[in-house]
């Protein structure tokens, strides 16, 4: 474990910022270019996870455990969100027989 901690001494905080924003943008692109509802939810998970990692990095940087507690709460929230979202997707599939996001146009004028 000491070896791993030694390995971590040299990463600037900027690199964590850049890496997490790249992952976040990949999630945004996934939401924009896919039509399958399940893949869109997976992209949202990707965005949530990138923010989690950045919070953990800031927590290690500041030496403050509150950031990691926030990550824990976000994970609980994500689990609840996925459960409800997948239930909604199953209900939509039962009514429209597809998971295409474009089939949900009833609310559009």
């Amino acid at each position: 474990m000491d070896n791993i901690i030694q390995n971590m001494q040299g990463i600037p905080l900027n690199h964590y910022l850049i890496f997490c924003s790249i992952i976040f943008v990949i999630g945004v692109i996934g939401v924009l270019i896919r039509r399958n509802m399940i893949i869109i939810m997976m992209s949202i998970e990707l965005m949530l996870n990138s923010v989690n990692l950045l919070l953990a990095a800031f927590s290690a940087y500041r030496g403050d455990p509150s950031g990691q507690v926030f990550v824990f709460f976000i994970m609980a929230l994500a689990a609840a969100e996925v459960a409800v979202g997948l239930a909604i997707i199953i209900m939509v599939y039962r009514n429209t027989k597809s998971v295409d996001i474009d089939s949900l146009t009833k609310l559009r004028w």
Partner: protein
Amino acid sequence: MTIFYFVAFLSIFFALMTIFTKNPVHSVLYLVITFFTFSIHYILLNAQFLAVVNFIVYMRAIMVLFLFVLMLLNLNKESEPMKSHLVKFMGVIAGACLIVTLLGAFKVFESSNEMVTAHENIGLVKNLGKVLFKEFLLPLEISSILLLTAMVGAVLLAKKEKVVKKHG
């Protein structure tokens, strides 16, 4: 030090594979690998508790849920709806604009170029549990109520509706 860059490259690669693969089942499997690399990142940050929770909650529970729904709905490559190339191109351009904006903002905010030092025992269960049950006791209880509500809501939503007979 080089471990971080290698794992970061792997995460970006598998995240890209997740959104660009046509087959939804392969997409879920690539997402599992991405979450595994995130677990490695947590271990590198010396946040062991988060690494284990990430492994259990994301890689097992959520991914099993996604795979289960995909197989329940019987989706495969042939039935996968895809957007036109123009819309895809526009989406990638929009994402590129977003990342350029973010990187420009980080460039202005220059004071963050210090090293991240992983502290010895911040992320251990002992320390984190003390913080969780002293300072964050009320949010913890509220989040348990949230999970219960989500469970009831999911069951209620996914249940088949009974056919209601209309009288008159």
